[in-house]
């Protein structure tokens, strides 16, 4: 069965249950938004999904096969963008991107998605930089980028090498409205090509047909801190 699923997931961080009994499913072309207040576990869930941390309970399945069986095969099919930018200040913008492309090029699923652009890696990198509006800055050291430009560089990463699954942790942070527009367009194109997306966000991403998981609803009862937040409309992205 194609798609990305998880059942009965639980996450424990430093002896506290962040969430438990959480299920999710994304099918090709689908999108999933994670919402919930600060500290409700959005990032934690994304890290479980990406295989950076392993769940305290439950199982994550990629195309019918548990991820834990052959993690590397899964890693090759996926992009993860976290809170931190993984940008090296001493390297130029292009070098930063080329490194990540080469790193993920290892067994990258070149034919797995229609958003595949070509096999010429340098062309891909140029195109990705152009796409996020960093092409003219390509040869500057990344140290000279502003916060939003750095975030754009991070997002260029997911455009430079194709992968069917994108896991994005608050991708819009520090972006201006124009860059957010481009991100929306990229997401739409990715999904149109059969790609899947899971994104956490505190601001509306404008993906209207996405399913939403509210992390606050999966918190264990004892935690009254966030208890009354779950039904607020401002959280955005609810269908």
């Amino acid at each position, binding site marked *: 069965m194609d798609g990305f699923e998880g059942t009965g997931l639980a996450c424990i961080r430093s002896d506290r249950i962040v969430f438990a009994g959480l299920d999710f499913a994304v099918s090709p072309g689908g999108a999933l938004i994670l919402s919930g207040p600060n500290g409700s576990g959005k990032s934690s869930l994304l*890290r479980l999904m*990406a*295989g*950076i*941390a*392993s769940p305290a309970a439950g199982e994550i399945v990629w195309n019918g096969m548990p991820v834990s069986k052959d993690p*590397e*095969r899964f*890693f*090759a099919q*996926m992009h*993860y963008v*976290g*809170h*931190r*930018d*993984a*940008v*090296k200040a*001493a*390297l130029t913008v292009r*070098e930063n991107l*080329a*490194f*990540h492309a*080469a*790193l*993920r*090029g*290892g*067994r*990258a699923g070149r034919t797995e998605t229609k958003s595949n652009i070509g096999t010429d890696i340098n062309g891909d990198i140029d195109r990705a930089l152009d796409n996020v509006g960093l092409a003219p800055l390509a040869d500057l050291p990344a140290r000279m980028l502003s916060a939003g430009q750095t975030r754009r560089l991070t997002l260029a990463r997911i455009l430079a090498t194709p992968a069917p699954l994108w896991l994005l942790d608050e991708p819009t942070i520090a972006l201006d409205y124009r860059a957010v527009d481009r991100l929306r367009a990229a997401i739409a194109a990715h999904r149109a090509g059969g790609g899947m997306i899971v994104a956490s966000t505190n601001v509306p991403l404008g993906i209207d047909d996405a399913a939403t998981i509210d992390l606050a609803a999966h918190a264990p009862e004892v935690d009254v801190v966030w208890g009354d937040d779950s039904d607020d409309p401002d959280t955005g992205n609810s269908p």
Partner: protein
Amino acid sequence: MNGFFALVGRDTRIALRQLSDTMMVIVFFVIAAALFPFGVGPEPNLLARMAPGILWVTALLAAMLSFDRLFQNDYDDGTLELLVIAPQPLWMTALAKIVAHWLTTGLPLLVASPVIGIMLILEPSSYGVLMLAMALGTAIISLVGALGAALSLGSRRSGVLLSLLVLPLVIPVLIFGAGAVDAVIGGFAATQQLLILGGLLMACLVVCPWGCAVALRLAAE
């Protein structure tokens, strides 16, 4: 393998961004060694006796100064998470970082050691063995140091672990490395010491990348 070379390339590039960075390891090595005459006094005999010890201690120190940053930067800026979920075995990633470290630190140290030998009036006959022992020794230090650096990421108790685990591992390198040079100076063959160093290197090649991988995965989590 793509990722392996990309990583070696990136790390050496960051280090070589300007040639002066690699030069710096050499210069540090020379300066640190030159401090000993100031402490001990300028008598050539005394210095010559201490030369092998001084050489090895300063080389180790120069290497130590560079471990600090080996994984720390990647850990802080989130690159480590991406390395952990790169589609290649994590021990290979770790090995790539170790190779890059050796290229940018171990190799310059190796090249600089004859210079320091001259300054410390080291017995001329011992240079061959010195270089050989240094080649083995710096490789072991890169491997063990990387393990230490990986272990000391994140958790608090690991620091103590680091010193309890890694530094004792490096002592044999110091002893046999300095011992090999001493042996030649004393007119003996250094085969035994070199063999032991070779053996240590093999063991480290098996254990350290694997240990690094486990430690890195833990640190990213």
